[in-house]
């Protein structure tokens, strides 16, 4: 066997690498090929989305978030930041009618189940082996079991952005794509203001049911999505009623709670936040809101920040100091979220630029 023939044999492993790399890199691209769909105007599409109604659906939702938030070691586990806003997650979801929902978040070797059939709500955590039973009032205004339920529903996420549409938003249809095996239109919302860090929000709208299948948020700088929530598989068959029932397994600690008839608005969307009211000072868990639309800023008051010597202190030490007639504070910025922490314990947070925050500081109630 000649040396040339011998070395030619190495072409086989090289080809194997090329094929593997090719399939790995191009596979998703081919799967995402733009389907052929009749043209539609942005206004028509918007109208269809806002009136879209399905009786039920089920599927798998994937979310990936990279808000550029600083990783704080040791803080992560007990963080108050909703877990949807950090890292990648997969959840199985099922919805039927207005009051039946089930979300199972597939954690690493564990699972968190949130389910409600309209009368009872269950929250089960397989890692802690604990279940919480929540008896819902006869006529709940809107049973908010947990924010996760909405966070893993691309429809609900899309609704928040659609609600933000106002004259300051440019809306256009930018093409088609295939999401979870379904043909979808891409509706892009671009804020006209340059005060926000949001570059654009793209909704993938199913061409048959007009339900949003995927939401992609791009920051003003960079091309990597800051947030992407979408179905990786979806079925529009109404799930069986048994899907929403839950029987606590043996050996699991069950805590029973009753939700009062008047649901306190614990978790509200930025849109529904109370307007700034000087007579009603904001507290740590009840933010005041300045501005509207894309420039919305939430103000928390009386936040006790005791960074000590931890990584947070280090972060604050490196942060830019800003001053004005309102006082002085430190500004933390990431590619999506900016925060201004004033020396008198107020925190301003928003999807806005650092300068916008500083400009809004005088309006923030003390």
């Amino acid at each position, binding site marked *: 066997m000649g040396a040339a023939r011998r070395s030619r044999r190495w072409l086989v492993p090289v080809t194997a690498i090329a094929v*593997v790399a090719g399939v*790995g890199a191009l596979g998703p691209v081919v799967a995402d090929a733009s389907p052929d769909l009749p043209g539609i105007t942005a206004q028509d599409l918007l109208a269809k989305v806002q009136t879209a109604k399905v009786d039920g659906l089920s599927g798998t939702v994937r979310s990936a978030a990279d808000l550029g938030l600083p990783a704080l070691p040791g803080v992560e586990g007990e963080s108050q930041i909703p877990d949807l806003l950090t890292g990648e997650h*997969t959840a199985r979801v099922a919805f039927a009618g207005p009051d039946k929902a089930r979300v199972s978040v*597939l954690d*690493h070797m*564990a699972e968190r189940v949130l389910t409600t059939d309209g009368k009872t709500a269950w929250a089960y955590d397989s890692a802690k082996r604990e279940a919480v039973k929540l008896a819902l009032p006869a006529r709940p205004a809107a049973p908010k079991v947990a924010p996760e339920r909405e966070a893993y529903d691309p429809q609900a996420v899309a609704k928040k952005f659609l609600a933000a549409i106002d004259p300051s938003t440019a809306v256009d249809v930018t093409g088609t794509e295939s999401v979870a095996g379904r043909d979808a239109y891409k509706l892009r919302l671009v804020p006209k203001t340059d005060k926000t860090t949001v570059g654009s929000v793209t909704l993938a709208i199913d061409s048959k049911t007009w339900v949003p299948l995927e939401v992609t948020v791009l920051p003003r700088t960079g091309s990597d999505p800051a947030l992407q929530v979408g179905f990786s598989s979806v079925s529009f068959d109404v799930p069986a009623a048994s899907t929403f029932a839950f029987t606590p397994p043996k*050996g699991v600690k069950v805590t029973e709670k009753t939700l009062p008839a008047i649901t306190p608005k614990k978790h509200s969307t930025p849109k529904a936040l109370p307007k700034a009211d000087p007579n009603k000072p904001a507290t740590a868990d009840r933010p005041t809101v300045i501005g509207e639309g894309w420039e919305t800023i939430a103000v928390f008051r009386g936040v006790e920040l005791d960074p000590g010597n931890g990584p947070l202190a280090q972060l604050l030490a490196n942060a830019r100091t800003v001053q004005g007639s309102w006082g002085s504070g430190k500004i933390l910025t990431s590619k999506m979220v900016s925060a201004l922490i004033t020396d008198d314990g107020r925190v301003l947070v928003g999807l806005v630029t650092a300068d916008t925050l500083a400009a809004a500081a005088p309006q923030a109630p003390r």
Partner: protein
Amino acid sequence: MSPSDVQAVARRSNSGQLPESAQRPGAGRHTLALFGAELHLVFGRARTWVLLAVLGLVPLLVGVAIRLSGSSGDAEGFIGQVAGNGFFLIVASLGLSLPFFLPTAVTVISGESLAGESSLGTLRSLLTAPAGRSRLLAAKMVALAVFCLTATLTVWLGGLIAGFVLFPVGDVVLLSGSTVSLTDGLLRALGIAVLIAGSLLGLAGIGLFVSSLTSTPLAAMAATFGAFIVFGILGAIPQIDEIHPWLLMYGWTSFADLLRDPPYWDAIVRNLLMQGAYLAVFYAAAWARLTSRDVNG
């Protein structure tokens, strides 16, 4: 090389191989004989049985430790459920041996496979028949795959025995909160053992390739284990998380998805495809190396 290795090689010589002559057996019956002889070689070694014995003892050690500590388990995850249901000792042991014990065993056996023959001098005679080289490599790989499966099944069996002896057993609570019968649970655990064996194939392929490069088995084992550690380090660096999904061990923990209701197949399938990709690349490289190798090399 221990005397048992020489015996094992000699046994293969008697089972249809003609290592001293220039001829390799033809197709059909002889191929089967070759595969059988490879299995004999792997499972004829004392060290193989020592490795399997250690793996079989993992569940027992874990079980005894949990039993002695006496706590009903504040630990999260599968370990915390062992005291309540011995079934989970199987899953916990498989999960515990996956990061270290199983890869070590696979490294030892795969590093040995070709380099061992090289060091004994038996490879030279096997290589003199070019037509037989591909088949020889296939037989080596099949023997490695059988070892991977034997190793995980040993842990499964060890967990089954220790779990049933040390703890109460009963219906199995899945991650999703639903309960299935013990038989269903045991079948799922068996599926996990098979999946983990599949997860080890990529590493076995790397070991086989490294083993074809050298005639020192110890060097091959060290290099393979070194590669395994490098993968582990790369996977632990958050700054390069873009390449994490393509690392060898990225999907290794997907086996737990079998305990969901219904099982979540996406991650499992992806992991098996990844292992297949690693195996294909390194098996092809080992093939190129072995078939282009000088007889004396």
